[in-house]
């Protein structure tokens, strides 16, 4: 495995009697855009929380950038950028101040931080709104600033947890462009989503997850061919007998 890849091995996470992640195993290659596709409550966010050290696995392990999550979480945090499903930001800070705060927490050199902040704000179309307090942002703007906050350290590995949920079409298009840009720059990306078209448009490979288990894993085209389906929704339907977005 190359240094910036991810390897997940027999991961379990139980909350009491409930098994959120059930024997999860997969690998993500360096520079790959990997999608975790599944319905709400499938275990996508729990899996990401374990890979980023927010949750401890009940059993099993994972290696992120070659580091074991159980013993080298500090090294892993220098490599990663995480965009949480629920955008977390300081409402009394401006958009730019929120981004700069997280740049400083990642110890991004000052000159680089200034330049990168402007570049990313421009990329997500937030230059004009950057001086407004984030508490006054619309839902779409909040999602976009949250994405910039996650990637201000130019991480080698990005975890994007449902980055386009509840976004307007304009914001979603901007975000897709942003994610494609990461891919072009050879960054490793794990993207969780329950939007079929998003997974099909962006991901090199997709792991379809349901009830904490990977039930199918391949490129979108190969999955559709293998299950004789027109889209990934059809793949999911054929395997589980239910729709992803029920």
């Amino acid at each position, binding site marked *: 495995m190359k240094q910036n890849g991810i390897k997940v091995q027999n991961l379990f996470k139980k909350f009491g009697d409930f098994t959120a992640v059930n024997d999860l195993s997969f690998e993500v290659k360096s520079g790959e855009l990997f999608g975790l596709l599944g319905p709400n409550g499938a275990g996508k966010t729990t899996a990401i929380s374990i890979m980023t050290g*927010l949750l401890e696995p009940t059993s099993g392990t994972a290696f992120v950038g070659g580091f074991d999550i159980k013993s080298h979480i500090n090294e892993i945090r220098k490599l990663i950028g995480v965009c949480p499903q629920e955008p*977390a930001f300081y409402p009394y800070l401006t958009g730019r101040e929120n981004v700069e705060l*997280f740049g400083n*927490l990642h110890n991004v050199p000052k000159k680089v931080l200034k330049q990168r902040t402007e570049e990313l704000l421009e990329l997500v179309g937030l230059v004009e709104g950057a001086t407004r307090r984030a508490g006054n942002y619309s839902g779409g703007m909040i999602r976009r600033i949250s994405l910039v906050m996650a990637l201000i350290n130019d991480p080698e590995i990005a975890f994007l947890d449902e980055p386009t949920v509840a976004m307007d079409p304009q914001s979603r298009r901007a975000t897709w462009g942003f994610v494609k840009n990461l891919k072009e720059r050879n960054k490793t990306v794990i993207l969780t989503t329950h939007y079929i078209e998003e997974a099909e448009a962006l991901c090199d490979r997709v792991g379809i997850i349901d009830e904490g288990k990977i039930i199918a894993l391949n490129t979108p085209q190969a999955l559709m061919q293998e299950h004789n389906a027109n889209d990934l929704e059809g793949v999911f339907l054929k395997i589980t007998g239910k729709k992803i977005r029920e």
Partner: protein
Amino acid sequence: MNIRRINALLNKEIKSLYRVPATLFLAILFPIVLTGAFGLAFGGGSAIGNSTYTVGIVDLDNTVWSEYFIGNISENEVFVNTSYSDSETGENDLAQGKISALIVIPTDFGASIDSYWLNSTNPSTWTNVTVELFVDQGSLIASSAIPPLIQQLLFTTLYGESATNAPQSPIRLGNPAEVDSEHTTQFDLMAPGMFAFAAIFITMIVADAFTEQRSKGLLRRIQLTPTSPSEVILSSMLANMATAILQVGIVFAVASLLGFKSQAELTGLLLSFIMVMLLALISVGFGLIAASLAKTPGAATGISFIFILPQMFFGTFVPGSSDIGQLVPSYYVTDALTSILLRGAAITSETVIYDLLVLIVYCIVVIIVGIGIFAKFGREK
């Protein structure tokens, strides 16, 4: 520890102080407004607690008359006597709050009474003397209750049991107001408690801030960066110490405008700031504990009052009135500041050093416990 990260978090905390109206109110306006309200409520001089006062006596006369006067004081159930060989030692103890008043019986005290009884109708033949009375200006009750009682006992010594007043007397009681005339208002007496009072509310600010950040996922988000929990907590401590300095500055400025005159020298003022900052740190520790116990910012506010109320009522405006007071850290700040600001006690005096040491120990224990509990139970709910 990374200075840049701490600085970034500190900047964020400072911005919340003046950009978030609720924090601004809690940190600056609320303590001042509430201090004013409690000042009015408790400023009426209502007697609380002690019914006895320890009085130091320096007998420079050593005659039967001075012994008789001392005996009258001893028999009075309000007073407990302590003898001093010189007034300097007695004044030092008074400055530290160890005694409530100091009486200096002058050398001609007996001769003065003899001269009166030799010719009670001719004042020109009397030997006039002044019995000096120094009263603890840091105690509202002592400063108002002791002088008339001593005056009464002086009359009894001179004229007998039935005496209540006399038109003329060779013995004059030094007026405590002349000794320290600027420290006589209720406001002056409450000022040391106000400094401590303001810092107590930092508990609520910290508890609120941490639960708010936790519920919004911000602590998680910070946790995903290389930032350590100690950097987050240290930045909060620094921000709240800065808040405490601001609070003390504002309370001091307002108090000065209203006529408060400190007896402290520059070193005393500096130590006062340091002690309030220590109380601010203790409040951060209490805030972390409250945040660990609470699930929501609203609950954090409620739990904060468990730490705030005892400190407010037992350790600010009425120091020394209750043994319970000695359990709360604000008591030691108020006690030391009363000695420094009102009595002009030196920062090296026994009382001040004792208060400072207790506060330092309290601070270390509460911060360690606060961080420990927060690290274990407070970061995730």
